[in-house]
């Protein structure tokens, strides 16, 4: 596994740690590519602040800039880094402790005696 996978995940989690960037990414995910002006109209954030965060997100590879209508730059969410981060979350979300406790309980009860589980 290339070490850069961690750098990718770190960019995603750093981006998501900020409420303004979360709002921007959520808006791009929900409604598709948008300009900084579009986003300023939809979110309670100044256009300047949005532009600053978009530049940071583009540098981290989480959004990509592309030419839009009337020569305005549109930003599009890049899903690939999110998929990398998802795998990290999937490992953390995988719960074996609950099912294994249930298995111990089941076998302790099914044979009529207490389990000697350590």
């Amino acid at each position, binding site marked *: *596994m*290339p070490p*850069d*996978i*961690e750098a*990718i*995940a*770190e960019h995603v989690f750093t981006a998501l740690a900020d409420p303004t960037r979360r709002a921007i990414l959520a808006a791009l995910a929900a409604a*598709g590519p948008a300009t900084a002006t579009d986003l300023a109209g939809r979110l309670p954030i100044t256009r300047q602040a949005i532009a600053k965060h978009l530049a940071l997100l583009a540098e981290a*590879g989480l959004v*990509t800039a*592309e030419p839009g209508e009337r020569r305005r730059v549109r930003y*599009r969410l*890049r*899903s*690939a*880094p999110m*998929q*990398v981060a*998802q*795998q*990290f*979350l*999937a*490992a*953390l*979300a*995988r719960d*074996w*402790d609950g*099912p*294994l406790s*249930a*298995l*111990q*309980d*089941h*076998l*302790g009860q*099914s*044979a009529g*005696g*207490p*389990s*000697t*589980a*350590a």
Partner: protein
Amino acid sequence: MPFPDRIERTVQIGRPPDQVWAALTTAEGLAAWFGNEATIELRPGGSARMRWTGGETAEMRVERVEEPRVFGFTWHIFGLPEDDPRRTYVEFTLEPSGSGTRLTVVESGFAQLPEDAYRKAYDGNTQGWASELGELVAYLDAA
């Protein structure tokens, strides 16, 4: 920050391996502690399915059946979208221990990433829906 690929747990169970084996590999056993309902075709390549009362389901493909020591299957990675092709491998190992069983479960493959996903994650030039929608438009225009 290590990127976890593998989860491992070992528990001691006060029942002999054949009873633990039955709990892991029969529909009745699985439904009693893991899912709320289960079906299983116990052979390599066989399919198994669990369903919970909340409506969630898990589809498994049986990979290893070495009664009563090793049982392995692959399944979809919990938490990823339904159509995501990535799967993890789960392997239960049963070892006699005193009058009971030492049960180890290893789930691996969380950090797997298909080759094209690496490419996409680094490649700043993504196509995504723009090209897919373009293809749809081209297809409809040609019809």
